[in-house]
């Protein structure tokens, strides 16, 4: 009996919630790809995939930024405006004053880390602080670029539109990002400590780790991913717009949650999140190919999110 229990503890059963966390989004994405290919055979080519996945890079990085925050059980309501800010900085300064642009972007990453440290130091709810900061990012974006405009250097446009042989670049990058994030968060010792902050901060602190450093580091990483999202978005858009990133706040949360993260903290799945981001991206294409009016798309995306959360609760319940 006791032997049996320890076995179960060591190796989760085939349908444990932890496995489902990754398996469900993978299966869902595969099902969506098959459905998309069936409805619109044109998609099933190099060119089709390139068009379909064109806007996946900013969403992918925004979801990774949100994932960093979800690791410690926080939530970031400011990532969308932050992406807009990066977009405005890039479109205004990168071409003519690359140094100024670089300093501004590094400063933005440090500002994100400082926000994390502030949340930890004052023990504030992240939802309030990040919401407050979202207006600071937006205000800064409007100061940098009051109306849409500006130009993005050609090399950035060429880099985001780069055509890799055989497999389109967005798909390749998604695999690379999934691998790196999985390794850093799930496989390294410090990654385990960081996840520990999310599930049991008191225990981690008692073990001698600094919560301040941990949170600041994760928020800094989120800022870094946010800068990557803004850079890739600028390369695709070729211009700056202070309102451009607004949708990424909700999409990134939805992507990370569909990909297996929990709001309670400590439980994330970087591989799942990459698939979650792709699911959010493909869902609007799929609905379009099904000829469902765009007026319904937001509701349907929300419904999808609810369905995933409900299924997960059910799987936990069945798993017990």
């Amino acid at each position, binding site marked *: 009996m006791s032997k049996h229990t320890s076995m179960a503890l060591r190796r989760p059963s085939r349908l444990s919630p932890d496995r489902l966390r990754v398996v469900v989004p993978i299966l869902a994405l595969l099902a969506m790809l098959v459905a998309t290919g069936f409805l619109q055979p044109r998609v099933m080519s190099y060119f089709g995939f390139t068009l379909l996945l064109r806007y996946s890079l900013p969403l992918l990085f925004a979801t990774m930024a949100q994932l960093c925050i979800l690791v410690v059980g926080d939530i970031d309501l400011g990532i969308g405006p932050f992406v807009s800010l990066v977009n405005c900085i890039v479109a205004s300064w990168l071409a003519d004053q690359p140094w100024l642009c670089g300093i501004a972007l590094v400063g933005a990453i440090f500002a994100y880390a400082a926000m994390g440290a502030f949340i930890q130091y004052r023990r504030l709810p992240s939802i309030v602080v990040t919401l407050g900061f979202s207006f600071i990012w937006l205000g800064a974006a409007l100061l940098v670029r009051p*109306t849409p405009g500006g130009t993005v250097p050609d090399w950035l446009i060429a880099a985001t539109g780069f055509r890799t042989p055989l497999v389109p670049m967005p798909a390749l990058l998604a695999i690379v990002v999934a691998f790196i994030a999985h390794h850093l968060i799930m496989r390294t010792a410090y990654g385990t400590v960081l996840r520990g902050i999310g599930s049991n901060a008191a225990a981690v602190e008692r073990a001698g780790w600094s919560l301040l450093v941990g949170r600041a580091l994760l928020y800094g990483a989120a800022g870094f991913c946010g800068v990557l999202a803004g850079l890739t978005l600028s390369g695709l*858009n070729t211009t700056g717009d202070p309102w451009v990133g607004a*949708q990424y706040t909700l999409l990134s949360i939805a992507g990370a949650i569909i990909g297996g993260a929990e709001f309670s903290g400590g439980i994330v799945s970087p591989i799942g999140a990459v698939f979650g981001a792709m699911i959010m991206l493909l869902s609007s294409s799929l609905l379009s*190919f099904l000829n469902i009016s765009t007026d319904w798309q937001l509701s349907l995306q929300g419904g999808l999110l609810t369905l995933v959360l409900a299924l997960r609760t059910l799987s936990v319940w069945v798993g017990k």
Partner: protein
Amino acid sequence: MKQIKFASASALALLMALGCHAAKADDASALKDTSKSGIALSNSYAGNTWRQQMLRVWQAAAQQAIDGHIIAKTKIVNADASAPQQASQIENLILEGWNSIVLDAASPTALNGSIEDACKQGITVVVFDSLATAPCAYKVAYDYVEAGRIPARFIVQQLHGKGNVLVVRGMPGTQVDVDEFQGAQEVFKENPGIKVVGTVNGQWTESVANKEVAGILPSLPKVDAVIGQGGDSVGTYQAFKAAGRPIPLITLGTRQEELALWEKLDKATPGGYATEASSSVPGVSSIAFWVAQQIVAGRKVPNVVKVSLLQISKADLATWLKVTPVGAVASPVYSKEWTIDLLKSIAANTAPPPSPGPTQNK
């Protein structure tokens, strides 16, 4: 011998038939058959009455074309004022294989990459209202500088070149506002008797215009005329009324409440109330639709198709009011024939056809 004779006779018949056919085709000015084609509309934002009306007009024009077997299908895709979202919707439309994509763009530049993608696939791209700058896209454009000149000229003429004018501008930071203001300035500069005594931003919104005009009024001398950009005249009127000042000449847009104000003032003023109403209209989506259809059919169309504003004269006022529901904008619906006339007039460099009159539409 008989065989040959028969062959030549049938060849002759064939030739005649061909000739007839060609003549007929030329008459109908149908260049190529488009009955298997699809034209999609990608709209950046659907959250106000102007855009809703624009979408209804599109739907009506497209339905008429489908019923008449001119095109096979249409589809409307709305983005939530988000350029990346609209860009990926355009990518989806490319994958769906539409013959033409018509855009009301979320950004003048951010969609250019997607538009280039569409052009490379041989898709006809037409932009209207909020334009995009991609060179391969056809533009159905209002001349907003002229839109500023029209009411300014009317004011100069009514005041006989002498008087004080208050300028109510539109949404700050938009090209439309910059252009309209420039047009009005040009006309006023040519007439040194006209003095601009104040400028406020009404943001094309009655409540904002009301607040702004009420704020500047106490500092102003007698105002003879107010030039607005449409959507702001009722607020301006209320500000003058609340301040107890005589109602000056206020130029109008073509929203229902503005036309109703004209009718009301006209009845209340002895000798009538002289003003003009002009504006860009949501019906422009039907021009964009037919332009797209004509390009798909093979007509040579210039890269920029200029469209004139709707101008309402006092004679038409009552009819326009009757067909414009409360909360809507007075707008004609442009037909295929009208659009072809417009394109021909541009090709021949002659005056554009007169704007269609008021028609009942849903």
